[in-house]
């Protein structure tokens, strides 16, 4: 199927949300010299050995001032040099899996002494197609605490971990807006925020409560920065540069935002000490849907 409006909307919104949270909240932590541990992942390409870190979702956006975006790893005491995905990506020697917080190396050596410098997002971001009750009550998550572990561990790949923000497009509606067939598309996106502490939760809710009237550039999925390895397609990614390529004049408009928190009384019903909040976005876009 070719790309539809909804695909563009979710792609654009996720990239914007990531940048907005990292920029306004400096919601990341830099780590340097983190030892990457070898582990076996049967889902990974058999030509590659996998070396994992204790954290998922490393920062990819170079527009975030101060965040360390890895471009390679250090093996032993020797940095591998600048890592260039254009020449050493899918068919090259190495890929950095930013989403799963790991490095894939084309090698049969399982005993590399590998370290890496990177920034980890304080909140992982996931697009979920699940109800709030499933997200909060039914699902089982690993807590990927941002406190550096005392022992060398790796976080399992693929599974969703918290602290995290889960997005869901709740409803979408078109109505006539202007002569000539222009329509106003209103989409509600609900973000469920799960945090280890109240401070972090309040921070996220506060940042996005102030996002009303923000404009978001519509970025097609073909410009999503990550490839099939969750590695950068072109070596670097800068949200500000990317969004400038697409006019905000006909962009997505945040018409309304409501934030709320799960009350303490309700929280007591949960069997884990997790803080939960909600951000309800009402996003408008004026467009010609028949074109």
């Amino acid at each position, binding site marked *: 199927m070719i790309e539809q409006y909804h695909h563009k909307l979710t792609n654009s919104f996720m990239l914007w949300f990531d940048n907005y949270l990292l920029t306004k909240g400096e919601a990341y932590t830099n780590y340097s010299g983190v030892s990457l541990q070898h582990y076996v992942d049967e889902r990974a390409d058999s030509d590659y050995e996998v070396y994992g870190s204790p954290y998922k979702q490393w920062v990819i956006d170079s527009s975030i001032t101060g965040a360390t975006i890895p471009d390679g790893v250090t093996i032993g005491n020797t940095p591998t040099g600048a890592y260039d995905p254009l020449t050493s990506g899918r068919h090259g020697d190495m890929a950095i899996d930013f989403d799963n917080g790991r490095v894939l190396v084309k090698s049969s050596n399982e005993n590399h002494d590998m370290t890496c410098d990177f920034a980890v997002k304080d909140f992982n971001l996931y697009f979920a197609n699940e*109800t709030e009750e499933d997200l909060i*009550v*039914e699902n089982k998550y690993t807590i990927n605490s941002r406190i550096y572990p005392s022992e060398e561990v790796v976080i399992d790949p693929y599974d969703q971990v918290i602290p995290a923000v889960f997005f869901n497009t709740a409803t979408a509606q078109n109505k006539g807006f202007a002569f000539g067939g222009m329509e106003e598309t209103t989409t509600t996106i609900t973000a469920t925020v799960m945090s280890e502490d109240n401070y972090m939760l309040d921070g996220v809710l506060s940042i996005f409560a102030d996002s009303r009237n923000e404009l978001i550039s519509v970025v097609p999925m073909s410009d999503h920065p990550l490839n099939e390895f969750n590695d950068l397609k072109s070596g670097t990614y800068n949200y500000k540069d990317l969004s400038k390529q697409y006019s905000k004049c006909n962009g997505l408009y945040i018409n309304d935002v409501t934030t709320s*928190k799960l009350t303490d009384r309700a929280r007591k019903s949960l*069997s884990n000490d997790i803080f939960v909040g909600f951000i309800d976005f009402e996003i408008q876009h004026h467009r010609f849907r028949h074109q």
Partner: protein
Amino acid sequence: MKILPRDVQEALNKQVPRTLKNDFKKTFKKEFDSLKKEMIKEFLTHPVTLEISAGPSSKNISGTLNGTSNLFAFIGFSPGEDPIKPIIEILERIDYKEGSGSKTGVNFLVDIPQASDIFAVTPMPWATGRSWSKGIETGISGLGYLLNKGGKSSRSGVAIQVKNRVRSGGFSNTPYISALLKKYENKFKKLK
């Protein structure tokens, strides 16, 4: 036809509006009160209102839950709560005042609440920043229903779980506050 002298015309222009004003006011008040009463009655007899007012033992007469459970329990209200009361209080406060600018009659300005005014006084019991009355129109998750259930602990491990798992039914949106206010805003505008 004989034209009235100018001084008589001027006297009539001055006196007639003043004389009729009281009649206009009486008529308007009567129609306003009747329409306001009709509006509140329509709200009170709305299936959603009836279902929530009936409390935790109600049946799902609104059909929003496919007959499973009822809105009072689904939203997560506690027994004894009266979630409808704040809405009634806002509707009861609907009033009018005399406007200016009319020489031959009286202008009335009716102060009708916005949907957002009602959303602001109808918080979800489990997340007070959200409104249950807005949720009736846009969708409500079954979280309140699940969280309201107590009981023994279930699964173990590092996970977020309620102490007693209960499957919620799906919720179907239905027009509620916004539609009611819009309908009566048009009716109030037509009062003469």
